[in-house]
């Protein structure tokens, strides 16, 4: 059994337990052991990087140190956490001077970054540890050609030089994993473009306009739902539709579903076992189509 | 029967390894004793200064002198043996180039005494005793030879006829030297019994790209037992060191540290190696990685280098 230190981050446990629940159920069913991390903190995402990059690196490194001490690789659910931690891990592994600088800071918290562990997104765990074939064999309830607009979120792919997750212009991994569930990953306009989520709280109007584009493009392409990996994207697109309704007087009713939820459903988890009431846009349409 | 030759062996400032090297010639010693009498050999025979002093000048045919000139006694004996010997051979790295003893030239006499008699962790010297040339004791006055400030080579002290460098000298070269002496086929004065070519010439290791990108200690590499140490980043003195040793260290997978001394056309072994090293160093960073330039490049030849010793800070 493969074990990982589960890095939850801030948003998932605080706002989206349905994501955590679905991910835990799915990964456990697939034989991945998730170890909850003692003392993990915020991953130091872009808002903190905006305040101070060096501090952010140190905080990310602190969390990696916890995994090093536990002798476990990290798995993240949140794309933002994946980005923050992966960038810190890569930079500190590859730039000795930066590492020395950060370790001086970490010494104050009694930690030292050693660079012995990896940070993985749970999609990588599915691809590499479980594998598409085993995943397909585990599917008990295929998603019946559900038309899914895949939206991985920016920080799974970019900056590709450091994340090295997938081809940043022609990513295949997420789509492959969606199709492994029996669904169809449909093309839609500006698929790789940002949801604007990080502008929420500073320029809500801009953020909403960008989110609207996303919804409209998926809608126009005939998607049954948009599948997300990042709690921020989810929030922006799911809650966002309420705001779009209020601001633009438009209603799309586009279900936003975390991939972990789709995965759980296809692995045979009953909808009632999942915390589906956390969805602002109801997903009944999707459940019906899956049957 | 021919008249037997008279040999002398002397041990000045050195570790004594050269004395052992004389025995390393094994059965050859039988040829030696067959053809020569050893008239003076303090390590093996009980003989006093006065016995030597009493010998007629040039009565010793060949004197093998090992050790550098560190003390007044070393100097006295070097001069005395020169006077008494027809042929004086500088035997071993200490006599030829100063060797490790010569590295003492990086410090002054005072510093050395301070270190040796006070600072080393194993020293207990509550009465602050240091060597004195004359000391009164209950039974009279004791005399000690003076410890010189500077270590010299034998040739810097007296006229030397032949040289056999090495730490200790390689056995085949000793045998060649003995054969030459015993058969009266001596080379021109000033010759060395080592070879003209460097250790590299005898080394079996493969030379590869000849570009040093990083200086490494030997424990830092995974030696493949085939590739030249320099190509693996380990400093090897072979290129700048007079050969004749059959590269025996390298055959035992240890880089050459330079005991053969400078090549025949070179006056300064360390500087020659530094020039070569700097020329093939990939970038200036590599140069900074050399921690101890004198200890690395002049381990055996500091006393016989161009500058010979450190200028002591005032």
């Amino acid at each position, binding site marked *: 059994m493969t074990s990982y230190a589960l890095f939850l981050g801030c948003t998932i446990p605080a706002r989206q337990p349905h994501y955590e629940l679905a991910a835990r159920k799915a990964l456990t069913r697939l034989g991945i052991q998730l170890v909850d991390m003692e003392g993990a903190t915020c991953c130091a995402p872009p808002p903190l990087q905006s305040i101070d990059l060096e501090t952010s690196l140190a905080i990310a490194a602190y969390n990696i140190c916890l995994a090093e001490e536990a002798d476990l690789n990290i798995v993240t659910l949140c794309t933002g956490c994946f980005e923050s931690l992966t960038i810190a891990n890569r930079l500190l592994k590859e730039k000795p001077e930066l590492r020395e600088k950060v370790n001086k800071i970490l010494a104050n918290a009694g930690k030292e970054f050693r660079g012995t562990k990896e940070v993985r997104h749970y999609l990588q765990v599915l691809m590499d540890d479980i594998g598409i074939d085993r995943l397909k064999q585990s599917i008990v309830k295929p998603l019946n050609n559900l038309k899914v607009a895949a939206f991985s979120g920016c920080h799974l792919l970019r900056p590709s030089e450091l994340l090295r997750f997938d*081809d940043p*212009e*022609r990513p295949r991994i997420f789509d492959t994993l969606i199709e492994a569930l029996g669904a169809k990953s449909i093309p839609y306009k500006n698929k790789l473009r940002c949801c604007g989520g990080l502008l929420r709280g500073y320029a809500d109007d801009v953020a909403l306009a960008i989110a609207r584009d996303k919804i409209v493009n998926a809608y126009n392409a005939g998607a049954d739902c948009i599948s997300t990996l990042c709690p921020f994207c989810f929030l922006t697109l799911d809650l966002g539709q309420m705001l779009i309704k209020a601001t633009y007087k438009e209603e799309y009713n586009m279900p936003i579903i975390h991939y972990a939820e789709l995965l759980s459903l296809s692995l045979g988890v009953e909808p009632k076992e999942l915390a589906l009431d956390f969805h602002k846009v109801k997903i009944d349409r999707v459940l019906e189509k899956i049957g | 029967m021919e008249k037997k030759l008279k040999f002398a062996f002397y041990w000045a400032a050195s570790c004594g390894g050269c004395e052992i090297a004389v025995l390393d010639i094994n059965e050859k010693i039988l040829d030696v004793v067959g053809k020569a009498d050893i008239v003076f050999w303090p390590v093996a025979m009980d003989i006093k200064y006065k016995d030597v002093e009493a010998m007629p000048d040039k009565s010793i045919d060949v004197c093998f002198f090992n050790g550098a000139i560190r003390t007044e006694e070393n100097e006295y004996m070097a001069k005395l043996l020169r006077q008494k010997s027809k042929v004086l051979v500088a035997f071993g790295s200490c006599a030829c180039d100063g060797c490790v003893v010569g590295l003492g*030239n*990086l410090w002054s006499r005072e510093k050395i005494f301070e270190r040796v008699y006070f600072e080393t962790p194993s020293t207990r010297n509550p009465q602050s005793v240091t060597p004195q040339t004359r000391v009164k004791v209950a039974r009279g006055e004791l005399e000690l030879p003076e410890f010189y400030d*500077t270590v010299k080579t034998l040739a810097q002290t007296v006229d030397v006829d032949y040289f056999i460098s090495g730490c200790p000298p390689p056995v085949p070269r000793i045998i*060649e*030297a003995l054969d*030459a002496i015993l058969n009266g086929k001596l*080379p021109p004065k*000033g*010759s*060395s*019994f080592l*070879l*003209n*070519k*460097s*250790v*590299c*010439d005898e080394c079996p290791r493969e*030379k590869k*790209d*000849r570009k040093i990108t990083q200086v490494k200690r030997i424990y830092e590499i995974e030696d493949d037992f085939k590739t030249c140490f320099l190509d693996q980043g380990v400093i090897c003195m*072979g*290129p*700048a060191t007079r*050969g004749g040793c059959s590269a025996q260290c390298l055959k035992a997978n240890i880089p050459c540290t330079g005991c053969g001394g400078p*090549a*025949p*056309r*070179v*006056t*300064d072994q360390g*500087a*020659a*190696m*530094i*020039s*070569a*090293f*700097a*020329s*093939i*160093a990939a970038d*200036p960073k590599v*140069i900074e990685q*050399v921690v*101890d*330039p*004198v200890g690395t*490049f002049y381990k055996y030849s500091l006393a016989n*280098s*161009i*500058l*010979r*010793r*450190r*200028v*002591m800070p005032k």
Partner: protein
Amino acid sequence: MTARKGSSKKSKGKGKGRKRRGAKVKAMEEAKVGVFLSDCGGQIAKILDFEALTNFVKTVQGVTFVARANEFWRGEGLKIIVDAVKTKKVNRVVVAEAVPKISEVAIAKAVEEAGLNPHLVEVLDLKDHCALPHRDTPKEATEKAKAMLLAAIEKARLLEPIEKTEFPAVKSVLVIGGGIAGMQAAEDLADMGFQVHLIEKEPFLGGLAAKAVRFFPTDDCAICIQSPATDLKTVTQTSRKCVYRSGFSEIPNLNILTNAKVVKVEGGPGNFKVTVERKPRYVDEKKCVACDLCTSVCPVEVPDEYNAKLTKRKAIYINKPLVYPPAYAIDAKVCKFHECAKCVEVCPTKAVNLDQKTEHVTLNVGGIIVATGFREYDPSVIKEYHYGEYPDVITHLELARMLDAFGPTNGVPVRPSDRKPAKRIVFVQCVGSRDRRWNPYCSSICCMISLKHATLIKEAYPDTDVTICYIDIRTTGREHEYYYERAREMGVKFVKGRPSEIIHDPATNTLIVEVEDELLRRLMELEADLVVLAAAMVPSEDTKELAQILGVELDQDGFFKEYNAKLRPTETKRRGIFICGGAVFPKDAPTTSLHAHSAAVKAAKFLMNGKITKDLKVAVVNEDYCGNCQFCPVTCPYGAITLEPKGDGHFVAKVSELICEGCGVCVGTCPVGAIELRHLKPSQISAQMKALLSVNGTSKPLVLAFSCSECGHAAVDSSGMAMMSYPANVRVLRVPCTGVIQVQHILEAFKAGAQGVMVVGCKPDGCHYEVGSQKAQKKVEMAKMLLQAYGIEPERLEMFNLVFIEGDKFAEAAKAMTERVERLGLLQLA
């Protein structure tokens, strides 16, 4: 048993495969030095006390003759030297004379004519190196002049004659690459009477030019060349000719081999043995009448590379319009050979021969010209532009084929997706060029190519909407700016901005180019039927492999690297191998021509005499001491040193006398002193050093400056010429290159009385011997470490990198070094 130090038997040079000229080196005769003191027309006699100098020189051992004159390098002065050599038995000539280098050459020439080896001359410059810079302290200057004279005399006494040698130079040249560069160079050389072999890897000559159709800025047919000399009898010199109407292949001495590539090069400059592999054409060029019957029966169809895959061709094919050779060729990759053999049956002249085999041809040539050109970069790696995915995104070469009236669309630009004429065309500049992700350099010709294509389209189809998205428009050539102007006048639109993405709208089969018009500061979505990418120009395929075979360097971008961009732009570091055209960097046709002619002239100059005569001022290995450490071969900037087996399992270094440039970087490297320069022996350096430091006569601490003969000495010269002043305690010792200097020399200088040591050489990247200055720098750094360990202030040693125009900096450095050493106080050696 061996010598402890120094003396050794001299190794005798072996004259293998070449003739030695001039007198055999005589046994060292006693040196009789003649010293000739020029007071430069009396000018410097006002500063230097020539009486004192003359008297001093007379006391120096070996000096048998002293003369003084206004000048010695010409006229009466020179006659005095000649006379002294002829009648006074003077056999070493020391001349104090200004006019650097000119005087050296003139005196050496006269001395040689007088019967003395010209290398027995030592010229020193008392004017620029002593009198002028020290004019404020004439007494000290005179003392320094004595030291300089003494040093020159000491060196002269140790001078030995140096012979001249001749090396064979085969009057034949191999030109690799049958594009315009290769054809032009080949034609030049053949016209000059050299035997030329022109090889082309494709079955047809013409290269990229043949595909490009027209050239800017004249919109001329791309494939015309100068008239071969064979035609000169009938045609005026200024005419041009179409390649296929030029009679190119009939030029005497020109041997054209298509389907051919170089696989091995042996030998050396002047005498290469080149193995060329010739793949079968399967059609006998001499029999084929190009009737086209074969293609009509050939069943195999493949996309035609020549037409940018816009059309198909058969397995047996010919490129049109016709170029050399006018014969069909079979594409071995797709032909079914004997399974089919329809072409064999149908051929009326029995030209098709499916059993042709790969041949290997060995050519003996004196020089090689590389003219392998460049190619268009495959922009499919730039995924945001979707080349290779959206059929209507094409490159300029593909567009060029469309614009060719013989081409796949007969001159009409169309959308490949549906073959409809393209009415809205967007060009995207800098695709894969100026892009750190792919090729960081500017490909330099794409702006002009876009302008050419835009205007050609506008001219033929004025209602076509053409937009060029650019970062910067670069039209630097003559007339190019007018070309740009014309494009604007014709209505070509220009958007300053680099598109971020090309999107395909399947509903309308329209491409959308997303770009910010920076000048409007507005995001645009340009709709287009056809998007043309100005893809980067990159080195031809197999460039790396060829460079390896030839033993020449490539630059960071993968093009062939020239010896020196300014002075030797068509030469490589490997003598006898020349480069030209797009193989060096992307070029337009005029520049390619220029380059090709230059390479041809360089090759001709190298081989014209059928032999190469050279003074053997080179490095010499003493085999008795060489320990096979193999450092010198890698440090030699010219690859002149190889290791030669001695047969007993041992190796010794061997210097190629032809290739060696005599810089001495190897000497500065050799840890056993086994390599010496014939023209500057270690004994001569020591003698000069001692002499320069033996006469003090100044109140200031002596500083020895080692200076290279190139930039270093030029800076010292110019310092004096420009009347800069610095103290007379600074003494200059000239070496060929600072790379020759060893740490031992620096230590010896201190031992000999120098209080400070300067090393003055070229800039690290501008060393006349490539690497010498850098190596010197590293040695100086290590010597400083060593001095520190010896308890000597490392600041007493410093390297300065100067050039000719920095004479002021040399004076400053000399002053600064003097002050520094004064501040440090007297150097105490233990």
